[in-house]
C-alpha cells in the first residue's frame, strides 16, 4: 500500500531542504468525489497531498505548463529559479514524463519523480461510478486491494469489484507502476490479468470500413470542439496548434497582408468534416507518443471514444516496430529512427 503520510513527508522534506521549487500532486477537490491537481510551494502545505483512485489527471501536463512559464520568465529577462520540480506520478504519468524527456522537452535533472503504485488496480472511471445507484453522491473512493474499491456514500461504505469501476485505460494497462522514478511508494505489481492490451481497438476495427466511418461520423458530429482533449494531454504541447483560428501568433511585425492570406487549415465550425480533420491530425501527431493515459477520453463531455484513435496507432507501433511510447526515455523515438529490419510492406 502507498503510505500517504510517508509521501507527504517526502514531499515536505524536498521543499524544506530546498531541493525542489515545487511539488505537483493531488489534493481533495471542493466539489464531488474526484481529487484535483495541485502545486505545493511550501513544506507546510504537503499535508494536503492525497493519493487514491480518484487521482485521475496526468500531472505531466503541468510539467509542460511549468516549462512554458520558465521560458516566459526568461524572455522577460527574469532569471527563473533553476531548481527541479517534483511530480507525483502513477504509471501513465511517468510514461508521459519519459516521452517529454525523450523529446528533450525536459531535462532529467529538472524533474524529481515521486512514483506511486496503482496498487495492482488503477483509477476509476467517474462515468461508471455515476451510473451506479447513488454513485453521484459518493464522497470517497479508496483502494481496497487489487480487486476492489471502497466507495463511501453518506456514512455507508461498500466494496465494489475493481473491474466494475476501473477506467478502460487501466483495464488495458501494461505497466501499472511508474518504471521511471526517483522514489517509489507502494509495491510494483506486474501481474494484472484484467484485460488484454488493445482489446477495445481490436474489437472496434473488426467492423467494416463503412460501419466504422458511420460510427466516427456519429462521434465527430457531436464534438463541441471545446479542445479539452487537447488541453489535458501532456503530449499536446505545441505552442500553436494548426486548428486554432489564430494559428501562428501575430506580432507587431506581422503585416496585414500576412494576416489576410494566412491559410486556415481548420474552420471554426464544429462540423463533421472540420472535427474529423482536428481529431485525425491530432491522432497522427501523437503516433508513437501517446502513452494511453486516457485523459483525452475521460474529459470529453460528450464521451467520444478518443482512446480508440490513439491506441490504434500505438498498436501499430507495437506490433510492427515493437515500440512502446514512454517505456524508456533513452530509446530513439519512433518517427525519428530507422532500423534495417523495420517492416515496409505499407510503402507502396
Amino acid at each position: 500500500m502507498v503510505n500517504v503520510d510517508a509521501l507527504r513527508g517526502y514531499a515536505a522534506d524536498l521543499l524544506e531542504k530546498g531541493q525542489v521549487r515545487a511539488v505537483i500532486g493531488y489534493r481533495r477537490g471542493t466539489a464531488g468525489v474526484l481529487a484535483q491537481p495541485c502545486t505545493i510551494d511550501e513544506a507546510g502545505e504537503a499535508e494536503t497531498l492525497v493519493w487514491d483512485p480518484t487521482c485521475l489527471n496526468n500531472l505531466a501536463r503541468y510539467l509542460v505548463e511549468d516549462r512554458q512559464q520558465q521560458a516566459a520568465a526568461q524572455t522577460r529577462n527574469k532569471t527563473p529559479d533553476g531548481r527541479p520540480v517534483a511530480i507525483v506520478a502513477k504509471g501513465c504519468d511517468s510514461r508521459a514524463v519519459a516521452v517529454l524527456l525523450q523529446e528533450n522537452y525536459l531535462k532529467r535533472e529538472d524533474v524529481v519523480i515521486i512514483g506511486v503504485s496503482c496498487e495492482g488496480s488503477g483509477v476509476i472511471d467517474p462515468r461508471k461510478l455515476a451510473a451506479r445507484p447513488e454513485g453521484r453522491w459518493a464522497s470517497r473512493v479508496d483502494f481496497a486491494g487489487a480487486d476492489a474499491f471502497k466507495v463511501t456514500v453518506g456514512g455507508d461504505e461498500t466494496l465494489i469489484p475493481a473491474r466494475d469501476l476501473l477506467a478502460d485505460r487501466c483495464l488495458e494497462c501494461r505497466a501499472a507502476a511508474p518504471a521511471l522514478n526517483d522514489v517509489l511508494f507502494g509495491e510494483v505489481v506486474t501481474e494484472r490479468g484484467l484485460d488484454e492490451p488493445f482489446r477495445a481497438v481490436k474489437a472496434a476495427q473488426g467492423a467494416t470500413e463503412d460501419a466504422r466511418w458511420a460510427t466516427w461520423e456519429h462521434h465527430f458530429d457531436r464534438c463541441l470542439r471545446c479542445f479539452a482533449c487537447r488541453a489535458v494531454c501532456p503530449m499536446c504541447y505545441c505552442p500553436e496548434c494548426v486548428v486554432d483560428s489564430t494559428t501562428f501568433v501575430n506580432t507587431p511585425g506581422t503585416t496585414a497582408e500576412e494576416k489576410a492570406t494566412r491559410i486556415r487549415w481548420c474552420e471554426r465550425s464544429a462540423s463533421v468534416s472540420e472535427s474529423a480533420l482536428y481529431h485525425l491530425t491530432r491522432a497522427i501527431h501523437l503516433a508513437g507518443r501517446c502513452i494511453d493515459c486516457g485523459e483525452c477520453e475521460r474529459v470529453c463531455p460528450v464521451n467520444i471514444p478518443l482512446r480508440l484513435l490513439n491506441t490504434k496507432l500505438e498498436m501499430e507501433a507495437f506490433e510492427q516496430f515493437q515500440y512502446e511510447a514512454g517505456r524508456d526515455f533513452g530509446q530513439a523515438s519512433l518517427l525519428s529512427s530507422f532500423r534495417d529490419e523495420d517492416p515496409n510492406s505499407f510503402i507502396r
Partner: protein
Amino acid sequence: MEKILSKDRLREWVDALDDCEVLAPAFADSVWNYARVEAETVIDLSHTNTINPPKQFAFPQREVFFRFERADGVPRLTPTLPDPRPTVVIGVRPCDGRGMPRNDTVFSKEFKDPYYWARRERLVLVGLACNQPHSPNCVCQSVGGAPHAEEGLDVLMTDLGDRFHVKGITAKGGELIARGGDAFASLQAGDPAEVARVHAAASSHPQRPVAELGTVAEAIRARFDSPLWEEMARHCIGCGICTYLCPTCHCFDINDEVTNPNHGTGERVRTWDNCQFPDFTMHTSGHNPRGDLGSRLRQRVAHKFLYFVENHGTQQCTGCGRCISECPVGIDIVAVVDRVSRA
C-alpha cells in the same frame, strides 16, 4: 392552465404535435443529451440534466448568416435567415429554463438578433421539475431559482409517480397543452396538494450555498486585482467545457468560410466562441489583454456574478452545475465565488 397527463399518454400528446420538431433527452454514448423524438422513440424522462443545455435550439453552435459567391465578376449575397419548424423541447430542467430569458436579453437589448429570434420565436420549452437534485453540484436555489422554477419555461411538468401534473405558463405553453386534447385529464381534488408536497420535498434538499448572493458582485469588484484569481486558475487547462456547456454563455465568433476560392464561394458563419481560449481576446497586434489563466477565470466568474448584474439586474448563473461537474481539473465556481467573497 393545469392538467394531469398519465405517463402512458405522453406519447399521445407528442404525436399530436406532428408539425413540430420534438426533442427529448436520450441516454446515448453514456451521456444524456437532447435527441429528436422519432416514431419508434421511447421517451424516457428519468434524465439527470442533459450534457448540452437547450440554448443550442435558439443559438446553434454554427449559424450561417449568408452565402456569398462571385458570378461574372460580380459579388452576390444570398440571405439565409433560418426558417425552422416549430420546435418543442421536452424535459428541460428549471435551471436551464431560467437560462433562456437571460439569453433572450443578450440577443435583444440593444439589437434584436434576427437569427436568434427566428429560432427562438418558434421554440417551446416544456420543463420538468426536479424531484431531487441530480448531483451535489446542483445549486439552483442558491442563485435564486428552484427545482420547480417556472421562469423561462412555457410548460412545467411535475412527476407525480404514474402521472405528470402539467402547467401552462405562457400562452404558447397553453396552446401546446390544448393540442394534446383528450390525452390530458382535469385535476382531481388531491392533486394541487400533491404537487405542492412534491415541490416542497424537492426544495428541502440542502444545496451548497453561493456565498451571500447579494454581496458577491461587490466582492468581485473589490477583488478585481487580487492574486487569488491567478492562484485559483493555476491548474486551469484553458479548455472550453465550462462555457460551451453553460446554459447562459453566449459568446460567438464570425468567420467567412470559403468553399471555393476561385469562384469566391462561401458562407459567413457565426460559431460559439469562448472566453477561456487564449485567442478570444487576442488583438491583431499580437497583444492579449487577458493573457493569463487567472484573468480568464475572473472574466467568466465576473460575467456571471458582476457584469450581468450591473447590466441586466440579475445573476447570469442559474446553478445547473455543469461547469463544476465537467471541469477536468476540479475548478468549482461555487468555491471560487466563496473564496472571493471571503477574501
